[in-house]
């Protein structure tokens, strides 16, 4: 890449980051500004809204439950969706479009309607299996399908899986080896983005948990926030920051894991 193009690219990136950075950070700044106002026009700024969140035991329970759900859903998604997507692209190409449509369906139906369909199933589950909040993972796995499918698909489209798999098979590799040791390492950014989305969706999910009377993180925040406007906005900001740091942590974890596995050579 020559110097002129590099400079142009750098300038372009600077403009993009500044403009979009402002666009995204200003509303959050406004929320913080509101949450730190004192009562009355001329009161000094205060952090009481933030500190009063404190260590409410219900909130701690809800956070734990949400984190567990996030992990379970991500693992479930990786176990269910990823192999299926690779498999159908390799072996059953006529299923690719139908599966794509199926994966988009959870997003086309508003959550409030989807819950009407989930309710009888969850009623049965709660009575006959378990009424633990972790049962929500079953519904969440469906809810993350659209996002994770798209992220994984973008990664798969950049990898010539047919050639890779044929080469590997002709050298005697089993299908499992082809999938996990050849294709997946070549789409690591897609897999990590899919997991990221999974975690973000589960930690931010409100409607389904609320209407099925489960108390996950967002529902707990909603309950606590009904008392006081500043507290509800402070809670929202804290929730955003918490999820942000959790996702950041995950991205470092992902790098550590893939380094340890030694990854296949990038094609």
């Amino acid at each position, binding site marked *: 890449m020559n110097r002129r193009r590099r400079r142009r690219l750098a300038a372009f990136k600077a403009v993009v980051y500044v403009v979009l950075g402002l666009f995204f950070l200003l509303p959050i700044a406004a929320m913080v500004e*509101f949450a730190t*106002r004192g*009562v*009355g*026009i001329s009161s000094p700024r205060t952090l009481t809204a933030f500190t009063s969140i404190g260590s409410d035991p219900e909130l701690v329970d809800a956070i734990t439950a949400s984190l567990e759900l996030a992990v379970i859903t991500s693992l479930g998604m990786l176990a269910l969706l990823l192999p299926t997507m690779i498999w159908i692209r390799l072996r059953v190409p006529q299923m690719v479009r139908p599966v794509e449509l199926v994966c988009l369906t959870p997003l086309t139906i508003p959550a409030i309607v989807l*819950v*009407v*369909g989930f*309710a*009888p*199933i*969850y*009623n*049965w589950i*709660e*009575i*006959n299996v378990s*009424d633990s909040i972790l049962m929500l993972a079953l519904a969440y796995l469906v809810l993350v399908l659209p996002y994770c499918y798209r992220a994984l698909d973008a990664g798969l489209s950049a990898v010539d899986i047919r050639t890779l798999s044929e080469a590997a098979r002709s050298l005697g590799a089993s299908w499992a080896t082809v999938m996990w040791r050849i294709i997946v390492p070549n789409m690591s950014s897609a897999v990590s983005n899919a997991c990221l989305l999974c975690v973000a969706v589960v930690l931010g999910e409100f409607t389904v948990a*609320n*209407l*099925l*009377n*489960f*108390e996950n993180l967002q*529902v707990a925040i*909603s*309950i606590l926030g*009904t*008392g*006081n*406007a*500043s507290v*509800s*906005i402070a809670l929202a900001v804290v929730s955003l920051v918490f999820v942000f740091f959790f996702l950041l942590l995950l991205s470092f974890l992902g790098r550590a894991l893939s380094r340890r596995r030694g990854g296949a050579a990038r094609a």
Partner: protein
Amino acid sequence: MKGSAARATCLGLALTVVGTLAACGGSSDSSWSNVTSAASNGGMSALVTAAKAEGQLNVIALPLNWANYGAIIKDFSAKYGIKVNQANPQGSSQDEVNAVNSEKGTSKAPDVLDIGMAVAWANTSLFAPYEVSEWSSIPANQKDAGGLWYQDYGGYMSIGYDSSKYTVTSVADLLTPAFKSAVALNGDPTEANAALNGVMLASLANGGSISNIGPGVSFFKQLNAAGNFVPVTATAATIDNGTTPVVFDWDYLNSASVVNLPSWKVFVPSNAILGGYYAQAITKTAPHPAAARLWEEYLYSATGQNLWLQGGARPVEMTAMQANGSLNQTYAAALPAVSGSPVTLDQSQASAAASYLASNWSAAVGS
């Protein structure tokens, strides 16, 4: 949910193992499920013992700053050691009934409901009859004769406003240019009870009547044309922030805003006094029937009623309590002054108003 929706739900259940659902639900094996009054089953002490044994109560759609429910829940929980599980705090009355149907048989089903009259009238088949000890203190026209529902608190539709910026002496004031981008409702009138009553207030103040909400819709149309109407749903946050400095809402909900905004005042027009009460009910399929009944006894005791009064709502036993001296005079004096006789929407008037709004509200304010 009636008829068809319930049938759709049942169809879903039929596709799974229905038989197990016929069994008793949740953890309640107590005999309190069919008890219609405390006295008939061992009195209050027996009720308290049974409720404590159950240890939990499932409530739904009770925001903490709604008529002082935060303090009520805290006090009840501390007094009896019963954990109150809250669900869906911003839910509507219909959401409560939907939850009763969808959670039937599980341990998370709502035990007690606090719902608007329209939803109460339509869903009496879900309620268990019960008469609290103070039954006779509730006026006859504010309870179901069979004990299925009983009104709990109410108030008058009012206009709350930030007195540091505005002065409101009549509903017509709101049409003046001083109120540019200032007036809001507390929800969508085609969906929410409080907002529908807000439009009805405007109607009463502009020549309409309890059976005709048309002038109210025209009023808001004018308001919108003048640029005075803000379509944002008024919440504590938008009031504090100043985006919705004038709000049509129940007086007890408006008075809750004074805590965060000391200059907030509540105005009830003298020529349009529109009252509205909510109602309590115990669900037939309550997983904690004793705790549910204890909750109702608590709410209708002087303690409970006075806590609602503290929240700015008018408790249903107000007249009786005034007579026997148990009404908290400080809180009573803080209520907005109202002179004149209030009107209330009955079942047919409510649905007539709702249908009119469904066809005309969007056109009036959706510019």
